[in-house]
């Protein structure tokens, strides 16, 4: 057993990948090895080259755009780079296979999933139609899919995201490859599903002795599953080490910065907020009705009657999985969709039933920051006009507005000279800062941040979270912070609401909810949160 464990499955020596056209190298001098039964996590922020590395191993680099310019990749001693297209095809699925991020796009929507998995067997000439079907059903059972017979005849759209990812995993593992490459396989899934998939990969690994190359940006996942870790940054390999070496004793400054940026699930311990109440929401709800000829009217309670309060200087977190109604709540609060009923009292005024025209003067009192910094800014306007827009709408003279744009940019950590640039000249984090500056320009009382840091890399995420906290403490703006990430909520929020299926299941101070959850669902969420046992900031496990 011990000898099987130490067998080298993947060896990458001094790998360079460059652009065909310009010759620019995108990843440089990457070397690492992976042994049977081992899980190696390849971590790095966006643009670090981790996906390119995995595609190079699979021989899946777009030959028109990218090429391996130096180095060697050995899978079980076979040189992937020297292999012919036919040899590569033979190696895929039998020696190495891959699981992608988005299980919906990894499957063919017009074919049953059973047929798709059987096809893997068929193209590799395994068995006959009857034995292939049996083998697929057995595999479905092994990945814990309920009712394999029914799943076998299902189309991808009939399955949930977690079930689809199980199909993709069974497809990847059915020929028992020695190497499994998983490229962000759980990023598109909810935390509870993510936990199940991670457990499944581990189980399969132990059963078949597979070597797993796991690509992720999530240090929580890394701390849960990694045996060893490779840290990449901008195409360079920064550091390699065992899980404890990297997480507890990082040698490189970059690794140290990256690991300490990861929020921990245990809140830092905040004083209760004592500010005056600025927002009170009572029985706010949203019902969608769908008329259908056959089924009659169908009612969907996207948001069941929900109440909340917000004080000045307070950050209220709203957490939940997809479909929990947290975004519906945010959009009702901002009146971007019309609530079906209930009250939104901003000070003494109920804004929930106002017409858009009546609402306009009140808009300056509540502002919103969205998730996607790349789509939140009009690409055709200069930063100065983007940030000044609200002020101009409320009659601020142009010079005064532009002067304040300068102040705001400095406040959010950008510089005055950036005023005349266009959005595409900024990174994601910088764009999110511009969005925050735009929202703050009107001196709002309430700021609604809808997954505002979810699209950002962890180091940038930390900075933006710190910025929001500073602004909250400094200006007394109340922030409603919507997130699916409990660790982010733990870092920034004073109080949290936990939502499930359109209603609030638990609420309280962040300490109470995250350390002493009263509801089973909250406990389940916390239990599923990756990396809950590791205090990243202090490079140690929680006692």
């Amino acid at each position: 057993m011990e000898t099987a464990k130490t067998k080298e499955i993947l060896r990458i020596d001094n790998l360079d990948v460059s652009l065909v056209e310009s010759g620019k190298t995108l990843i440089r001098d990457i070397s690492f090895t992976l042994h049977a039964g081992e899980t190696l996590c390849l971590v790095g922020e966006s643009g670090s080259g981790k996906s390119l590395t995995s595609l190079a191993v699979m021989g899946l680099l777009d030959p028109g755009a990218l090429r391996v310019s130096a180095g060697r990749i050995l899978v079980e001693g076979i040189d992937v780079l020297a292999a012919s297209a036919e040899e590569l095809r033979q190696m895929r699925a039998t020696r190495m296979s891959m699981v992608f991020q988005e299980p919906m796009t990894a499957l063919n929507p017009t074919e049953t999933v059973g047929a798709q998995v059987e096809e893997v067997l068929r193209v590799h000439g395994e068995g006959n139609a009857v034995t292939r079907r049996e083998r697929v059903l057995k595999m479905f059972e092994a990945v814990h899919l309920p009712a394999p017979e029914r799943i076998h005849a299902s189309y991808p759209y009939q399955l949930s995201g977690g079930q689809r990812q199980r199909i993709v995993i069974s497809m990847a593992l059915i020929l028992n490859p020695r190497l499994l490459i998983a490229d962000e396989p759980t990023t598109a899934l909810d935390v509870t599903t993510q936990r199940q998939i991670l457990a499944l990969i581990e189980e399969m690994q132990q059963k078949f002795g597979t070597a797993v190359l796991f690509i992720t940006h999530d240090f929580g996942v890394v701390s849960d599953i990694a045996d060893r870790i490779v840290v990449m940054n901008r195409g360079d390999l920064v550091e390699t080490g065992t899980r404890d070496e990297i997480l507890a004793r990082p040698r490189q400054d970059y690794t140290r910065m990256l690991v300490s940026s990861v929020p921990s699930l245990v809140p830092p311990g905040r004083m209760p907020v004592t500010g005056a109440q600025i927002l009170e929401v009572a029985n706010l709800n949203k019902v969608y009705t769908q008329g259908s000829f056959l089924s009659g009217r169908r009612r969907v309670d996207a948001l069941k009657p929900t109440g909340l309060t917000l004080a000045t200087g307070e950050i209220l977190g709203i957490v939940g999985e997809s479909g929990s109604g947290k975004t519906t709540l945010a959009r009702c609060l901002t009146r971007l969709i019309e609530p079906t009923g209930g009250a939104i009292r901003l000070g003494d005024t109920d804004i929930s039933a106002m017409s858009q025209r009546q609402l306009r003067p009140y808009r300056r009192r509540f502002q919103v920051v969205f998730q996607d910094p790349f789509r939140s800014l009009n690409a055709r306007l200069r930063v100065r006009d983007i940030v000044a827009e609200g002020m101009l709408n409320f009659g601020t003279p142009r010079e005064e507005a532009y002067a304040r744009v300068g102040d705001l940019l400095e406040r959010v950590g950008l510089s005055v000279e950036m005023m005349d640039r266009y959005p595409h000249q900024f990174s994601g984090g910088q764009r999110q800062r511009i969005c925050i500056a735009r929202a703050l320009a009107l001196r709002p009382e309430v700021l609604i941040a809808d997954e505002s840091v979810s699209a950002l890399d962890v180091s940038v995420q930390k900075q933006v979270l710190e910025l929001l906290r500073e602004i909250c403490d400094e200006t007394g703006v109340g922030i409603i912070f919507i997130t699916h990430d409990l660790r982010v909520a733990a870092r920034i929020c004073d109080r949290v609401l936990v939502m499930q299926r359109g209603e609030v299941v638990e609420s309280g101070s962040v300490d109470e909810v995250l350390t002493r959850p009263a509801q089973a669902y909250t406990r389940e969420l916390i239990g599923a949160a990756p990396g809950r046992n590791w205090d990243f900031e202090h490079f140690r496990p929680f006692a």
Partner: protein
Amino acid sequence: MQKVQDLPGKAPAAARSRPRSRDWPVRVACAFLVFILIVAVVGPFLTSGDPLHINAANRIKPPSAEHLFGTDAMGRDVFARVIYGARTSIIVGFVAALASLLLGLAVGLLAGYFPLADATIMRVMDGIMSIPSIVLAVALVAITGANLGTVLIAIIVPEFPRVVRLVRGVILSLRSEPYVEAAISLATPTWRILFRHMLPNTLAPLIVQGSFVLASAILTEAALSFLGVGLPPEIPSWGNIMAEGRTYFQLRPGLIFFPGIFLALTVLSINLIGDALRDRFDPKLEKRH
């Protein structure tokens, strides 16, 4: 993150750096269109002939040094008529295209942004699109007589609902963009959201559509004139010249061939340029090679 996300914006640059060999038809098309435009503008200086001068003694002559394309059944110089015809076709085409675009843009903005108006407007557009331009032209000619106005109306009316559909689609998709929602949150007046945040993003598809409307307008004008429900026969337009040449086609094929070749090349050039514009603005639609 930034690098990956910036790629769509850089796609046009990538398109520009592609091998030149595939660009030549577009270059030729551009050159031809410029040539036609020059001909339309400086037409009278290119020929000493008078396109309206009737000379009974000089009927249906073959091409000669004096009459490059020969003469028609009334002894008029066909070369001069084709040159002046370019002017007519280009004017009718551009006016019709521009009017369709502006009208379609205005109605499309309304339909796309105001859900209450949407259903009504789009059903009316469906109705208008069901009117064939030739039937409309015949009806208009019967009421008001053949003139430039009836031709323009007969082209614009069936054409502009297509522009409405296009603009409405773009506006509908832009409405849910976070930057538009951000503008709503900033209490930006509706007209400013429409003109500042949405209109600029409709221009690229609108220009592409405009090129196809232009080509179709020139063709429709020629077709209407050829059928005798377009411009009055004395006005030199490519359709009119061909209509008159039809009777003598077996004797003098040039009467149809010369205006026909100008018409075909002009429309082909515009379509080629339209395709190139579409590839440039929206690389997704381009055929993969």
